[in-house]
């Protein structure tokens, strides 16, 4: 073999910086290195800046993984999870982990990040005192929040406030203690700090500034309260210390590398030992240590190039900007805004609108910017700040932002169109406009998802999503289909998925709560969003949410199908399509008694009674109930029918009891509400007489067991099903289908059939979650079973007994007449 054997690269730490180094390295020089990573944390590489949304419940851990296990396998990377390196042996060029594992290196990359600072007050070691750095901290906070109670967050900087917001969202009573008079004083001036304080107070978060913590008190080894210098006592079930970080440089120091505040590196990110590089928060470069991702990503590019043999690239430092990730608070700050004699400032205040903007200028250049309430121009200001643009000509209108800078207001896309190619759009990932536009044109991208996949822009904290959309619009013109952001209806700019996510995250439990908290543009929604919201709330809070019948389409409100002449049709449930002479007699009697004009057999093997007058409905149901029949839900976005063939009972080809299984499925699933109607079919053999392979979910019995199919349709679109998997027992059929249905219930957008949902998220999602991941399947099925506890009540019986009686009666004028 002519290839040189790969060199050994060992990485200490598996945070965001080395993750990005490896992404670049594998792209530039695949196969050049044999990589081994040690991570003190027992897990793969995840997006640390998204811990706050995990804490607040707006994301799950799975959503923030950057490299999953498969990634390490694909790239032949050995990842030692939960192993901390204790020693770097430079003489033997090897590292030693706490469990004795040893790895030799040709090149070593130190990426140990930083450690949270803990203020040395009495009580700091009590159980319940946590820092905010990794997933374990988040788990500890979530566990504490489960039982409610009081949380005290020490530190009113970015992290402290995000922690406070998350804990509040989780239902705790939260107080933030901040030593300085202004929150986030390193990024904000007193005015912006004041607005922020007010916004947090509106969210019921208590802020105490100038708060000097004296002691943390405990009971039985567990935290119980916090005492301030001035004697104030606060109860606490958990205390979060978020008072700052310091680069983790001890390991490097012990190995004799040069260390200042952090590990000293040159413009190639080399430490004092040329075979040892360092990246991320653990380094000190030209006197600077960084605590945000954008600079690390800049470093990552340079390191990867160097490792790949390109020595030309150098890192020269970064200017950083900060955004606070608290839903509903827009805050942006960049640069330096301390007051000094040689500086001028431009300030814009709109007290009523809660907007505050301040630019700090020096020699006609922007050196600092604070934006609160309206941060749309952040990227524009930041770009001029980084480039040192002379703003003399723009000065009069500068503060109004880019839209006004030309003298007359332009539309928002014009502002983005005017940005230079190297303007940074995504601060988290350091992606500039040119890169995004290039990806859009070269890769033929049409939506935000595509841009995210190819450039990583807007993939982290997501605050730049709007800018990315505008770039798509500018680049593609009319060809841009804002797929990912299609609003639910005219009442909101949010899409279905965002609304669902926020319902969970903000624990919204009624339609008025959604309309209020998510800033609906109409006072109480419309005929499009209300039924959708009603479904989402019902599916999210089973047993808790009270159905809003006025937000249901008439069919679901009266549990019958409205027909063209305003009469109704009713379909009694016939489990698995089986009926009896008694049932048929009762149906015939009802038809006679109420002069029902048409009795028809439906496509789903049930009997439809058409042309019932609305006021007769309760009496018709009472008679059908009396004969033992319940509503067939033939009118609902819900489980409709399970069509079956005769199977082994009668058929000479039958391999399994398809009728029996159909009945079991229908009894298991009836009553469940779903994003759209759900129809099932069970066939006893591959001859498929129940036409199970064009149903939402189908089962085809075979000799060895049961094939489970899904995502078929036989409506306006005809579509054969896809095979989900084959299982051996009926019990498994129920479990898999319960899980699949629940996944659809949780992910499907209202009025999206199963096949459309599967099309959108990909068939593999269902296969992974329902088939491959047994734990996930069991969880999903358990949630389905739980919600069914509240759903399996016959709506006909309730109404036959008088529920919603006013719905079925009208006023007759002859009976009226009281003169006013």
């Amino acid at each position, binding site marked *: 073999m002519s290839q040189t054997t790969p060199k050994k690269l060992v990485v200490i730490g598996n945070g965001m910086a080395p993750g990005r180094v490896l992404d670049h390295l594998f792209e530039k020089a695949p196969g050049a290195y044999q990589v081994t990573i040690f991570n003190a944390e027992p897990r793969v590489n995840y997006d640390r800046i998204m811990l706050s949304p995990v804490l607040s419940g707006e994301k799950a851990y799975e959503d923030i993984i950057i490299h999953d296990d498969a990634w390490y396998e694909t790239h032949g990377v050995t990842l030692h999870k939960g192993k901390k390196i204790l020693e770097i042996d430079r003489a033997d060029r090897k590292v030693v982990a706490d469990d004795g594992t040893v790895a030799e290196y040709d090149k070593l990359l130190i990426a140990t990040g930083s450690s949270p600072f803990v203020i040395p007050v009495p009580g700091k070691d009590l159980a319940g005192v946590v820092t905010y750095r990794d997933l374990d901290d988040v788990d500890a906070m979530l566990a504490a929040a489960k039982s409610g109670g009081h949380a005290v967050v020490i530190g009113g900087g970015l992290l402290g406030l995000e922690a406070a917001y998350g804990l509040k969202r989780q239902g705790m009573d939260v107080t933030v203690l901040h030593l300085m008079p202004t929150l986030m004083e390193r990024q904000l001036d007193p005015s912006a700090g004041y607005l922020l304080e007010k916004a947090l107070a509106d969210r019921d978060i208590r802020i105490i500034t100038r708060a000097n913590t004296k002691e943390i008190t405990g009971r039985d080894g567990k935290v119980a309260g916090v005492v301030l210098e001035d004697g104030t006592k606060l109860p606490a079930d958990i205390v979060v210390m978020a008072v700052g970080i310091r680069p983790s440089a001890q390991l490097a120091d012990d190995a004799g590398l040069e260390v200042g505040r952090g590990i000293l590196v040159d413009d190639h990110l080399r430490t004092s030992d040329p075979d040892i590089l360092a990246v991320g928060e653990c380094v000190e470069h030209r006197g600077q240590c960084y605590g945000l991702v954008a600079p690390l990503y800049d470093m990552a590019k340079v390191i990867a190039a160097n490792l790949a043999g390109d020595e030309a690239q150098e890192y020269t430092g970064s200017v950083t900007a900060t955004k606070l990730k608290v839903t509903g608070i827009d805050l942006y700050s960049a640069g330096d805004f301390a007051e000094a004699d040689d500086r001028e400032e431009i300030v814009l205040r709109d007290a009523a609108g809660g907007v505050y903007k301040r630019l700090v200028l020096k020699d006609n250049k922007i050196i600092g910017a604070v934006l609160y309430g309206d941060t749309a121009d952040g990227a524009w200001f930041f770009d001029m700040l980084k480039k040192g643009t002379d703003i003399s000509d723009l000065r009069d209108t500068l503060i109004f932002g880019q839209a006004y800078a030309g003298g007359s207001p332009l539309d928002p896309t014009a502002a983005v169109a005017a940005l230079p190619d190297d303007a940074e759009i995504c601060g988290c990932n350091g992606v500039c406009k040119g890169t995004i536009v290039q990806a859009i044109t070269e890769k033929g991208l049409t939506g935000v998802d595509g841009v995210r996949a190819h450039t990583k822009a807007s993939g982290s904290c997501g605050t730049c999503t709007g800018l990315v959309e505008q770039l798509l619009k500018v680049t593609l013109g009319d060809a841009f289909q804002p797929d990912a952001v299609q609003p639910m209806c005219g009442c909101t700019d949010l899409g279905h998925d965002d609304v669902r996510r926020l319902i969970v995250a903000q624990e919204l439990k009624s339609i008025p709560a959604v309309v209020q908290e998510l800033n609906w543009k109409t006072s109480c929604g419309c*005929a499009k969003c209300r039924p959708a919201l009603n479904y989402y709330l019902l599916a999210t809070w089973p047993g808790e949410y009270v159905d809003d019948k*006025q937000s249901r*389409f008439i069919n679901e409100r009266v549990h019958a199908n409205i027909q063209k002449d*305003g009469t109704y049709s009713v379909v009694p449930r016939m489990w698995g399509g089986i009926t009896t002479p008694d049932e048929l007699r009762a149906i015939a009697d009802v038809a006679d008694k109420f002069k029902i004009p048409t009795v028809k057999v439906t496509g789903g093997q049930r009997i439809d009674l058409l042309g019932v007058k609305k006021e007769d409905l309760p009496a018709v149901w009472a008679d059908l109930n009396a004969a033992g029949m319940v509503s067939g839900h033939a009118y609902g976005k819900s489980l409709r029918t399970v069509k079956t063939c005769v199977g082994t009972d009668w058929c000479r080809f039958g391999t399994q009891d398809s009728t029996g299984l159909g009945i079991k499925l229908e009894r298991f699933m009836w009553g469940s509400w779903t994003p759209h109607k759900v129809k099932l079919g069970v066939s006893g053999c591959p001859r498929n007489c129940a036409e199970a392979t064009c149903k939402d979910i189908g089962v085809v019995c075979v000799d060895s067991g049961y094939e489970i199919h899904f995502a078929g349709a036989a409506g306006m679109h005809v579509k054969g099903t896809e095979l989900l998997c084959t299982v051996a027992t009926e019990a498994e059929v129920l479990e898999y289908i319960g899980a699949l249905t629940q996944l659809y219930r949780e992910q499907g957008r209202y009025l999206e059939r199963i096949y459309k949902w599967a099309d959108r998220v990909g068939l593999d999602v269902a296969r992974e979650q329902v088939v491959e991941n047994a734990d996930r399947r069991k969880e999903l099925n358990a949630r389905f079973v739980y919600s069914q506890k509240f759903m399996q009540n016959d709506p006909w019986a309730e109404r036959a007994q008088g529920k919603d009686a006013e719905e079925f009666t009208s006023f007759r004028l002859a009976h009226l007449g009281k*003169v006013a």
Partner: protein
Amino acid sequence: MNDMSMNTKTQVWIEICRLEDIPPQGARVIRATLGCVALFRTASDKVFALEDRCPHKGGPLSQGIVHENGVTCPLHNWVIDLETGVAKAPDEGRARTFPVQVRDGRVLIDRALLA
């Protein structure tokens, strides 16, 4: 001409029901000699009376979803303005409206219009 005569004639208001007999964001139907009239109650407790026939294909408006000051017909989703009876553009058409008032929690309509 009708309007003129109406002003001169004294209107006879008759009580149909109490406000709470109509569900908020819902409707009740009055069967009158001339046909059905739908009484709508909005979320802000305003009450409107309209002929219970959609100008499109006669759908029963009383069975639709009530939102703001409009109702969406259950048959083909036309949106009818409760105040004016006019269909929302681009659809065209108009359902008849009737005077109605709420006094002390009682819903009153003009008997002359229903007789």
